């Protein structure tokens, strides 16, 4: 894995361009910085200044090369590259609280914004007026939407919310697309229809992700659980309580394996077995090299005993690559079906790129099915 420390401040959010040579990230302020890969270094090539509040979500559309950003100033901007500069277009979201997350749809003709106003704004471009228009999904959302993910059919949208539920909505906009074919989650999909609502887990839903086929959705919740639901006549839910601190972000790397990361500062693997409808812990993905254990002098032992009431110095230093919570995880290569590389950014201002093959060979019991 390769770790690069961009900043001392947390990275609020990040997005990669199509060929993974440029990364757009928010250094915990009102701007978006775009860095370009320069051999082994990263150089800042653009600074996007338009937001009046912290930028909470960035998404980069790979095909159309447009960036959408949303922030606590209740606005979203769509940026297009004109020559050498990124030009913003304001999108009126009609929300009265901060926007929290934004995602382009797979076909890039729509994007969805989750906000603290307890609703999701689904925005699409209206050619006649040359303007981005939005439609709201309100019912039955009771609190802030923290995370979003689109189904590959461009219509269904999974949303994790602070009202402890993960839901799948239909975001079908008849002006820009045809009626969708039936999916595992249902066949009638009018705009705003709830196709699935989770039960059972308590805690805010921090991260949500559809699998590559769209038949499964996984979410990570603040009560230290991860759950996977599989669509079908009756949705089948499997959840796993973990012994670690809550996870903040989750993604599928194959149809059966998930990687999640959170406040414990290292990514973990989970494996879903559809025959048993059970989720199991696959392993910790960050095994630090064992540093040589220096013998402790008697003086150090006494000092430890005095300071911390214990001679055990195991917990003193965080041995993982990230030194603070990991807040976002993104797939670099291979898509959600056969991910080869994924990237994590966190509150320590650093970005780590993880290689799946090296992880598999490094951790002997790891099996990514």
């Amino acid at each position: 894995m390769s770790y690069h420390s961009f900043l001392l401040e947390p990275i609020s959010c990040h997005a990669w361009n199509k060929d993974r040579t440029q990364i757009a990230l928010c250094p915990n302020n009102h701007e978006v910085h775009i860095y370009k890969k320069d051999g082994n270094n990263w150089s800042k090539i653009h600074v996007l200044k338009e937001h009046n509040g912290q930028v909470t979500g960035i998404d980069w559309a790979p095909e159309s090369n447009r960036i959408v950003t949303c922030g606590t100033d209740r606005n979203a901007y769509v940026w297009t590259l004109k020559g050498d500069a990124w030009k913003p277009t304001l999108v009126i979201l009609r929300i009265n609280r901060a926007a929290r997350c934004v995602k382009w749809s797979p076909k890039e003709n729509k994007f969805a914004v989750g906000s603290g106003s307890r609703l999701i704004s689904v925005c699409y471009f209206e050619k006649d007026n040359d303007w981005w228009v939005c439609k709201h999904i309100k019912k039955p959302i009771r609190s802030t939407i923290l995370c979003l993910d689109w189904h590959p059919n461009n219509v269904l949208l999974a949303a994790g919310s602070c009202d402890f539920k993960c839901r799948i909505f239909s975001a079908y906009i008849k002006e820009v697309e045809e009626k969708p074919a039936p999916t595992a989650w249902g066949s009638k999909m009018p705009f705003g229809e709830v196709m699935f609502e989770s039960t059972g887990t308590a805690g805010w839903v921090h991260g949500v992700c559809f699998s590559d086929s769209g038949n499964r959705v996984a979410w990570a919740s603040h009560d230290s659980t991860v759950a996977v639901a599989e669509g079908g006549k009756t949705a089948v839910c499997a959840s796993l309580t973990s012994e670690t601190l809550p996870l903040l972000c989750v993604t599928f790397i194959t149809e059966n394996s998930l990687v999640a990361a959170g406040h414990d500062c290292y990514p973990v693997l989970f494996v879903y077995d559809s025959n048993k409808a059970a989720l199991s812990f696959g392993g910790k993905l960050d095994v630090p090299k064992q540093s040589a254990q220096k013998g402790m002098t008697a003086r150090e032992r006494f000092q430890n005993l005095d300071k911390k009431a214990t001679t055990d110095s195991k917990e003193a230093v965080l041995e993982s690559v990230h030194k603070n919570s990991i807040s976002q995880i993104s797939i670099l290569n291979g898509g959600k079906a056969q991910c080869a590389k994924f990237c994590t950014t966190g509150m320590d201002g650093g970005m780590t790129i993880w290689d799946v093959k090296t992880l598999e060979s490094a951790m002997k019991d790891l099996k990514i099915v």
Partner: protein
Amino acid sequence: MSKNTVSDRFRKVDVDEYDENKFVDEEEGGENQLGPDEAEVDSLIRQYPSLFTRNLMGALQAVLKNPPINTKNQNVKDRAEGLVLKVLSSFKSTDIEKGVQSLDKNGVDLLMKYIYKGFEQPSENSSAVLLQWHEKALSAGGVGCIVRVLTARKTV
């Protein structure tokens, strides 16, 4: 204008109660939850299956059955907590670890909920006993177990 500023009763109004967007937890039938069976637990505590060892494991399993999570009746909850405390205090320090190991994942989560409830109202020796149980439950359930106690909307 000076007449209006005389009374300050308006400051005591809880504005959040009148917010039409106020989050209300879903109602889940809790009327039938009576908490662990007192008679059963008492009899198990007094049982001596073999000479000098009481059936405390059985008592632990019994007292963790039927937790009054959904009920709104505070008496039921207090009674359940008292029973749990009784069972936990009758364990010998060396047996606590075995007791925790005999529980499954949900059992450890539930035990941790009762432990924290017990911390809220300390009596003479309860905190010491509860701390010993807390240490063993923590090594079994991990930090996630405590997170679940903190994030649970409905607790014992």
